């Protein structure tokens, strides 16, 4: 193997290692992650590192215990796959405060690689954000999160149990009390961004489109049922109370929960039934952004 041939082979191996790293890191759309300027830079730096490692190995005649016949191939493989390990060797140490920092070629190589990797990540983040918000637009987290996850993982054949658990944990976190104030649509985007990493943007888009129809039918059926139940439950009396609550909110604007309960003269159980019902029907909403639990007419926060 000539020196040029060996260097080319080592460079090619270094490039393949870099492509492999990028594919494993940006699983949602590896092809698009690789076909970018930053990714080319990442692959280029890794390949150049492998070529430089091969040059060092050849110059100093390092044999790695190989026999004469297998020496060229061993040198190419070590340079191609092991350039990072080779360059990790520190030439000297510098003490900064109470830390000892190794200074060697690896520091320069790592800075270049992490800068290129960060650039790929930023580019992917922008694209992921655009495609995911477009797919998840108008999809209700509260109504459809569980159905969407079930659908996506049923469509996938090779999703691991860990990936499923990660997504389920994400849903639990989004439903937790500290996120109560987060708008439903934002939660939906958050879920979409987690799901897209596993299933990719095309599967996510397809799943959301298919589920939107079913959820919207379910929502109208449930509204009809609720109205029926309400007629059976409270009849005109409940309707009058609802009207009274809506009138109070119209006159006063957002009201603290306790104040609304007092003004409407509702027992706590009546309050829970009535406001819960109005909230489900999206006539009122609970606003916690000010630190107080305020009840307001739906959409009132966006008017100002």
């Amino acid at each position: 193997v000539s020196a040029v041939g060996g260097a080319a082979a080592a460079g090619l191996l270094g490039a393949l290692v870099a492509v492999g790293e990028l594919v494993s890191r940006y699983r949602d759309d590896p092809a698009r992650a690789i076909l970018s300027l930053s990714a080319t830079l990442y692959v280029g730096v890794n390949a150049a590192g492998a070529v430089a490692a091969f040059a060092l190995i050849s110059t100093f005649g390092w044999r790695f215990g190989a026999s004469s016949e297998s020496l060229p191939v061993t040198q190419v493989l070590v340079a191609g796959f092991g350039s990072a390990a080779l360059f990790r060797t520190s030439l000297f140490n510098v003490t900064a405060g109470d830390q000892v920092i190794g200074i060697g070629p690896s520091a320069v190589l790592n800075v270049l690689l992490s800068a290129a990797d960060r650039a790929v990540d930023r580019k992917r983040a922008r694209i992921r954000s655009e495609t995911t918000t477009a797919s998840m637009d108008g999809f209700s987290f509260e109504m459809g999160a569980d159905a969407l996850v079930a659908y996506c993982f049923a469509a996938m054949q090779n999703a691991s149990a860990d990936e499923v658990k990660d997504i389920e944990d994400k849903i639990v976190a989004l439903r937790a009390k500290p996120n109560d104030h987060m708008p439903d649509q934002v939660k939906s985007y958050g879920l979409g961004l987690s799901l897209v990493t596993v299933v990719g943007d095309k599967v996510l888009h397809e799943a959301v489109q298919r589920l939107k129809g079913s959820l919207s039918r379910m929502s109208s059926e449930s509204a009809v049922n609720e109205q029926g139940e309400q007629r059976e439950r409270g009849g005109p009396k409940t309707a009058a109370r609802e009207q009274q609550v809506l009138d109070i909110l119209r006159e006063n604007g957002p009201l603290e929960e306790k104040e609304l309960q007092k003004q409407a003269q509702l027992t706590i159980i009546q309050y829970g039934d009535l406001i819960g019902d109005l909230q489900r029907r999206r006539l009122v909403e609970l606003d916690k952004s000010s630190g107080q639990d305020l009840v307001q007419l739906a959409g009132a926060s966006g008017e100002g």
Partner: protein
Amino acid sequence: LAVDALQRQSRLSLLQLAKSLAAMERDGLVKVSGPPGEEVVRLIEGD
């Protein structure tokens, strides 16, 4: 226990507390009584 005190201790919104109380009352675990805004919650003791 007064509903006000229960709300402070549980740190739930009034709506969440109301829903929980309604469910517990349905299950026969508590009894809520008193005029609007001044309700008291009592545990119903089992057999």
